[in-house]
């Protein structure tokens, strides 16, 4: 490689490793899509404002923040839900609002304990729609074993919100067996997913009816604590890190971790569980299932010696029967996720810039 090419690559490397700065003139949908634009917003605006020293729990940018109160180790997480349509095959906004937050706690190694629920309702919302979602929230909380202990309601003028938005905040007790953190990821770790990917996002896309495609795909929304509990039992401290692969899909989670832990993650495409219907829909729409949202799938990093036990334990959990090892952690090239394709080649699985946009050709 020539000196000049080396210099150009160095310039790119330097530019990439710089803390992103938020310079956009306005907020676009891309800022909410979980890719590069979201990252710029979080790391370029929120973190500098809320955590000046970069030493607090926020700067760790995990799914939940950890705090110790009078000796009790707690995790706190919050999430807002703006899904459209409100009900979709396999779930609804209410169920999602509970599972989304308890799952962020679970993958941080915390047993979910309690939730607050805050509702923003649009003037004119059908009372039956509201009633159904309240019931869905109650049922999901029971299933996840959490109590709802606080709440709030606001009603906004017609047109100022789209039917209803739900915000939930959850508190969890950090499990004494858990020692999970992005820093704990080590070269050689095996990467596990808890089941077939891309089902929630595909179900939502099809339920919106924009594609005139009918397929029996259901959202995978479910509480993840049972899966986490089983992993902690099987692997203990050998379980190095977990993430809930929601918005941006498995690809975004892997990219975030490869970058923050300065390791390379190799993905064996042929081993990634994808149901045939999701694969077919993704093929037709020109979308990669690795970037499609899940609501009940976790990605776990486990040391090689514990990986087999962890996988067996995970597969015994209902809903995780098709869990699989999809890749491993390597040293080079740091910060990148490399896919070994089932055709025998390789490609880089990059972070999304914004929402995945379908290709025309």
């Amino acid at each position, binding site marked *: *490689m020539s000196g000049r090419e080396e210099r150009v*690559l160095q310039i790119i490397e330097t530019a990439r490793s710089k803390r992103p700065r938020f310079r956009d003139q306005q*907020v676009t949908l891309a800022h909410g899509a979980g890719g590069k634009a979201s990252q710029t917003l979080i790391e370029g605006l929120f973190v500098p404002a809320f955590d000046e020293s970069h030493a607090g729990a926020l700067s760790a940018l995990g799914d939940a923040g950890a705090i110790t109160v009078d000796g009790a180790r707690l995790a706190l997480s919050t999430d807002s839900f703006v899904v459209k349509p409100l009900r979709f095959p396999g779930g609804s906004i209410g169920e999602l609002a509970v599972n989304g937050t308890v799952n962020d706690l679970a993958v941080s190694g915390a047993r979910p304990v309690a939730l607050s629920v805050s509702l923003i309702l649009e003037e004119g919302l059908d009372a039956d729609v509201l009633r159904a979602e309240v019931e869905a929230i109650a049922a999901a909380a029971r299933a996840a074993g959490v109590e709802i202990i606080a709440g709030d309601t606001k009603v906004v003028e017609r047109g100022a919100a789209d039917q209803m938005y739900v915000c939930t905040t959850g508190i969890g007790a950090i499990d004494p067996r858990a020692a999970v953190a992005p820093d704990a990821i080590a070269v050689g770790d095996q990467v596990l997913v808890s089941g077939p990917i891309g089902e929630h996002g595909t179900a939502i896309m099809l339920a919106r009816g924009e594609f005139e495609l009918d397929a029996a795909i259901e959202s995978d929304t479910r509480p993840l604590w049972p899966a986490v509990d089983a992993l902690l039992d099987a692997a203990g401290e050998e379980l190095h890190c977990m993430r809930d692969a929601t918005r941006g899909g498995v690809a975004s989670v892997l990219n975030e971790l490869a970058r923050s832990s300065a390791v390379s993650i190799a993905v064996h495409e042929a081993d990634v569980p994808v149901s045939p219907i999701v694969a*077919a829909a993704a093929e037709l729409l020109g979308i990669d299932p690795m970037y499609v949202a899940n609501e009940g799938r976790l990605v776990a990093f486990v040391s090689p010696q514990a990986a087999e036990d962890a996988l067996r334990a995970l597969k015994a959990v209902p809903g995780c029967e098709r869990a699989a090892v999809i890749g491993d952690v390597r040293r080079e090239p740091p910060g990148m996720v490399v896919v070994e394709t089932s055709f025998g080649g390789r490609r880089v699985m990059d972070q999304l810039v914004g929402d995945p*946009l379908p290709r025309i*050709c």
Partner: protein
Amino acid sequence: MKFVDEFRNAQLGQVLAGEILAELEPGRQYKVMEVCGGHTHSIYKYGIDDLLPANVELVHGPGCPVCVIPMGRVDDGIAVARHEGVIFTCFGDMLRVPGSEYTLLDAKAQGADVRMVYSPLDALRIARENPDREVVFFAIGFETTAPSTALTLKRARAEGICNFSCVCNHVTIVPPLRALLESPDLRLDGFIGPGHVCTVVGARPFEFIPADYGRPVVISGFEPLDVLQSILMILRQLSQGRCEVENQYTRVVPYEGNLRALEVMAEVFELRPHFEWRGLGFISQSALKLSEAYREFDAEERFSVPGVRVADPKACQCGEVLKGVIKPWECKVFGTACTPEHAIGTCMVSPEGACAAYYNYGRLTRAQEAV
């Protein structure tokens, strides 16, 4: 998936890779251009590059319909989208292509009603459902997508839908190829022909490449085995001293093309005297506009658009990259003024463009070399 998985068989891929190796003349460097963005996508998606010997290089061609749209045309689209009462529709990957100041996504964030559609017929449906709004379709693409735009306009006329119009940016594939071939510093040994375009226009329009310029063309399908086999067919022509148009994609492409589609296109479109291509400049008779008979559906007539030509920055060397004359990193603005976040030239706009691919994946190659 049946009829798809068969064309993704890794073992057969290895066999083809071995046959490719056997066709090579020792010491010779081969440069093969895949004309179509769809092929670039397959090559990237399946990592086909990794199966090729180091002295066979694939050069990404001008056939990405999204990234060849110049900034001035994007600006025109945004101007139309900002008209009061307009619903502006386009394909998803057009939304992020930069104009001189904004993308269509920015325009949407600023209040324009911009919607993504999968087909021009979806745009027509929106027009039918919103009779009090003006619905505009931003038509892009080569001969592959032009017939569907033409059929949509015919249907709009048949149904008497008057609140529908179209900004026509359809382009044709032969003129930019000729422009590339005309260039004295061209360093390409052969072409992987654009399979989708050929389903419409057939193989005949590509006969000038071997006849006038002495380069083989193999029209190729889009699955990884298709692409590998086409590369093998090109190399075989070179080693046997043959030079012709061959059709690897016979399961889809008839040699004469789709005559009905061509007929509809001839009715609805006419050639523009010239059209600007991002990175390649003006190329005469390289694009389509609505014909006299369909002028009433022409959004450029219906709405005032700035129609200002925004020059590509002088430093941009996309043309040379496309011709295989320079490598992306040799371009003066690569990685500094021109990055995927703030792209200047066509090769950086599309994530599969040669420059974007190198920007994102160059380090991977380096890690590989270091091993």
